């Protein structure tokens, strides 16, 4: 259908548009490029971009701006049908949030989850990767696949399973405890233990991703470097400390950023396992936002929460880029 001829027909009227800016960066592509070919690429480029951009503008860019606007209004249930009737309230939603002990609690819980969960996930993923990369050849794939399985399963299903594993009467932990003769607490009903339980579960589910990334990073480290270190008399630990860790820095950065973003948005685990309880001890920002927005339809306030969380995500990401930047280059 779409032949080169029809495309070339669209050429001349497009040519002036790209004559201004980009030719400079196109020069290296080759001496063969004539204006009609450039404009042909221009047209193709934009045609190929259109579906993504249309969906992006409608379902991402517009809602991102709309959330910001909503966060300055008293958007409520009646505004779902009449969005433009919401009243402007300035920064009231934001100031109210920081006076609200419940939101501050949610913020604290989310940080607790991230500060403990992210290093544990990275640490266990790194340990698993180093073990798998330490020269064993038997069952390597077997172990790697086994460690990765939780990553592919739905968080909801995993949360349902773990709620049962931690069940005080019929659960796996309680069963092991009774067989080995020690008593186990009711993890999810305890204010002190509920959050650590969720963290353990999240580490269990997400370490596979970190492991696979670290494995790829480890395999990219040249053998010669390791051999040189060994010849110079480095022990296993020294090799790990002085060769592996520094050369894994780019991987570390990527894993840290991705894990942190995921953990800051934690929602399913407390939703299914504790509903934020007991006594708000596992209420996270995302769960609080969901409840405020869709149970009470305080959508203005929920929008403000979404932006506070997003600001934190951005700030933490930038900070990690600073701290973990590849200093070898």
């Amino acid at each position, binding site marked *: 259908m*779409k*032949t*080169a001829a029809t*495309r070339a027909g669209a050429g001349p009227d497009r040519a002036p548009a790209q004559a201004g*800016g980009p030719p400079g960066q196109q020069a290296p592509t*080759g001496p*063969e490029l004539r204006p009609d070919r450039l404009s042909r690429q221009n047209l*193709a*480029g*934009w045609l*190929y*971009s259109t*579906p*993504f*951009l249309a969906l*992006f503008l*409608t379902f*991402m860019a517009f*809602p*991102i701006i709309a959330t910001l606007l909503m966060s300055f209004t008293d958007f409520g249930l009646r505004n779902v*049908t009449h*969005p433009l009737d919401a009243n402007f309230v300035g920064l009231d939603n934001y100031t109210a949030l920081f006076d609200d002990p419940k939101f501050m609690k949610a913020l604290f819980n989310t940080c607790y989850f991230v500060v403990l969960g992210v290093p544990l996930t990275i640490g266990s993923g790194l*340990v698993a990767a180093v073990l*798998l990369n*330490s020269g064993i050849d038997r*069952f390597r*794939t077997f*172990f790697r696949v*086994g460690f990765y*399985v939780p990553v*592919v399963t*739905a968080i*909801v*299903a*995993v949360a*349902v399973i773990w*709620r*049962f594993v931690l069940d005080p*009467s019929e659960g*796996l932990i309680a069963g092991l405890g*009774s*067989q080995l003769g020690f008593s186990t607490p009711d993890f999810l009903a305890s204010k002190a233990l509920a959050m650590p339980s969720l963290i353990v579960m999240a580490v*269990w589910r997400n370490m596979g991703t970190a492991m696979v*990334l670290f*494995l*790829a990073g480890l395999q990219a480290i040249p053998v010669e470097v390791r051999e040189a270190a060994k010849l110079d008399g480095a022990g*296993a630990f020294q090799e790990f400390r002085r060769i592996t860790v520094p050369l894994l820095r780019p*991987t570390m950065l*990527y894993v840290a950023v991705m894990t942190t973003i995921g953990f800051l948005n934690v*929602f*399913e685990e407390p939703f*299914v396992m504790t509903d934020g309880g007991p006594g708000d001890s596992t209420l996270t920002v995302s769960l609080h936002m*969901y409840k405020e*927005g869709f149970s009470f339809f305080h*959508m203005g306030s*929920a*929008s403000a929460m*979404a932006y506070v*969380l997003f600001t934190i995500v*951005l700030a933490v990401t930038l900070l990690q880029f600073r701290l973990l930047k590849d200093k070898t280059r």
Partner: protein
Amino acid sequence: MSATEPRTTRPPKPGRTATSRRPGTTALTYTLLTVGLVVMSAPFLWMAVSAFKTPKDLGASPPVWIPTEWTLANFRELLDLMDIARNFMNSAVVAVVVTGCNLVFCSMLGYALAKLNFAGKKAVLGVVLGALMVPGNLMLLPQFVMMSKMGLLDSYAGLILPFAAGAFGVFLMRQFMMAIPDELLEAARIDGAGEWYIFWRIVLPLVKPALATLSIFVFLGSWNNFLWPLVATNDPDKYTLPVALATFATDPTKAAGSNGVLMAGAFLVVLPVVAVFLVLQRHFTQGIATSGLK
């Protein structure tokens, strides 16, 4: 249950090794890996056996590791309580369409970003990279209002459209397509091939592995997606599997005391995904490594 007897390899010899492989190091490695694997798989094994237990076995005080009597009663009760076949179908339809859309749209833009020169390319790339960072819950509330105004709540379209072209897919395809030599495409252009022909007949066949990887990730992401389907559906007939399972699990009137039925539900949600994963596992790990590190 075998889950309780982890150490099948020899116990490690005390004393750390310094230089290269010694039998002790290898044994220690395998021991640690085996312990890890037991911890990683125990919850799944516990779920799988519990789904087939009778209430008596479930409540037994010294716990029963292997059911004394295997039963399908939990699955039957689950089928009575919810239309799980319907939920399964909803999840499948949404995941298949979302995957198809992503394959087409993401490879189109990925190709343009990797191999075409066009005005505004840098800006488009910036948009894609920015979109990678944005968490879904930042858009949740207006998306709900929009969909409600458009009458798309409780519809497949409402579940599909927000995920029809993901930035992750674009990025992944771009990374793979950058590896295609420019000379190949240039030769095709000199031979008079149109851009669409080049994309469809030359580029796409070259990135089949990438398309496989992308399908797996997008399908899985859609299959496991929870927050948006939770918000966008009200009618139990339109629930996807995770929403149906979570609604059932958090409903205080139904869930109490029937852990076996819940495990049967979790079993049905997890089993197809794990089966597919075990068959296609190589693509998973390759895909992750490529998207992350190139």
